[in-house]
């Protein structure tokens, strides 16, 4: 079954389900600042024209919260809540993202890695996915939080 992004242009989904997704960013050839998402004009030095890059698959939690409501747009009605974080990537960008895990799984400064959350199936039967971050100690088999991991899902 194919996986399609909730919106094009923000992340790349690898063909191999074992590979993490990659956030699509830009780097300014003039001042070196990196951005997510991709942009034409450098927000720091206003240079026109940036280079495409793929951002790191790991970052650290700058701040986080846990929402005690279902994730909007997710099909599983029984999902009680989900974590949200701002994640600082090594290249510089701070990315707001869903977290995988329960309310007790996160702390500021914790290292997290990127993977994919399945929101629902579209009319073609494809999985509609969005990126999320996950602490290393929260396993794919965990049943808490924002739902089962997509890795290895049927």
């Amino acid at each position: 079954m194919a996986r399609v992004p909730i919106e094009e242009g923000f992340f790349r989904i690898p063909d191999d389900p074992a590979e993490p997704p990659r956030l699509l960013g830009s780097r300014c050839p003039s001042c070196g600042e990196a951005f997510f998402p991709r942009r034409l004009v450098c927000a720091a030095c206003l240079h026109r024209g940036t280079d495409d890059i793929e951002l790191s698959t790991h970052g650290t939690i700058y701040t986080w919260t846990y929402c005690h409501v279902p994730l909007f747009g997710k099909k599983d009605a029984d999902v009680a809540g989900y974590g949200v974080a701002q994640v600082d990537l090594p290249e510089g960008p701070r990315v707001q993202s869903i977290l995988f895990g329960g309310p007790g799984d996160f702390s500021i400064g914790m290292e997290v890695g990127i993977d994919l959350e399945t929101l629902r199936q579209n009319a073609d039967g494809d999985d509609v996915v969005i990126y999320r971050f996950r602490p290393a100690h929260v396993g794919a088999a965990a049943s808490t939080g924002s739902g089962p991991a997509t890795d290895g899902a049927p």
Partner: protein
Amino acid sequence: MTRALTFDGIAIAGIGMVRFGMYKDVPSAFLARDAGLLALHDAGMTLADIDEAFVGYIQPASMLGIKAMKEFGLTGLPVTHIENASATGLVAFREAAWAVSSGRADVAMALCFDKMTDMTGTGGRGAGRDQIDAPILPAAYFALWAQRRMHDRGTKPEHFAAIAAKNWNYGSACPFAHRRSDHVVTAEEVLAARVVAEPLTTMMCCPADDGAACVIVARDDFVRARQPDRPLVRPLASALTSETYSRGHTFVGPVVGPATMTRDTAELAYEAAGLGPDDVSVAFCHDAFVNEELEYYELLGFCPEGDAEKLVAGGETGPGGRIPFNTDGGLTARGHPGGPTGTAMLHEAVLQLRGQAEGRQVDGARVALTHLVGGGSIATVNLLGVEGVGT
């Protein structure tokens, strides 16, 4: 580059608002009409006196403002739509004040309205469910700010709850507030409410509601002639900024902007008015989520960085305190329909400066500060004063 405006020779001519609440079966144009008619009555005017109008709302629809203005009559006046998310009302007022101060109009109207009950799902920020920033609850973005504050400063949920209780209790004293509790709200009650996004409970978050509020600005000689027995309230200065880039800026999501934006905007407004935080009698801020209010105590200059918790513990921002905040209940209790939030804030600021805020009046109020942030994001700070201030 002019990011702050100073106003000369102008005054508030009239104010009017429809109490915020749920008006599911009332068209927004009727809410706007009723608020506008109250403001015209307060000013002693009809539409024939209005030279220019600025209308604001955040509903994703065009032409609503022009259509709402027709409820007062059709005189051919210029009408311009203003939209700056939560800050829409204050920015419509800023444009009306500048239209008069610049001399192009003698009288200008800022009319704002919204119906959250007409909006669904994404809170009206325009993201459909197939957009990258759709899945996350907007409250989460402010909860992220609260969590970081707790980490950096040792702030407790009790501090946020105390601010919420203060605003709920102010709302009970204000006839224009959506939430009017029948009992004194305690911090314990706020903490015991359902958690939405940690550490924020439902009682720390603004309600979704409908409403309208209108402010009319005019040349001060017009206002003196129409309302000779009323204390004159003057718009003094207005600052408006969008973000400047810094590392860690987030581009995706309903961005709430860096905290420094409010601080820089307030400094511009104070400088333009020739005033400082010590001159302010009563303040209003964007307390859509009450942890914001705590941050703004510092960013608006009312205490040093890191001391906001002491202000809360000392009750300094409540009745009888050094700098009362959000005396109409703020966004927490008065409500936050979006567009009219800023003009409702001005409604209360003007009542305070006229000495008409019965049951919640700040003694001897001479200067009011109104602040809002708008998602995207922008910040605006406006200063108003009674006759003799800043002149």
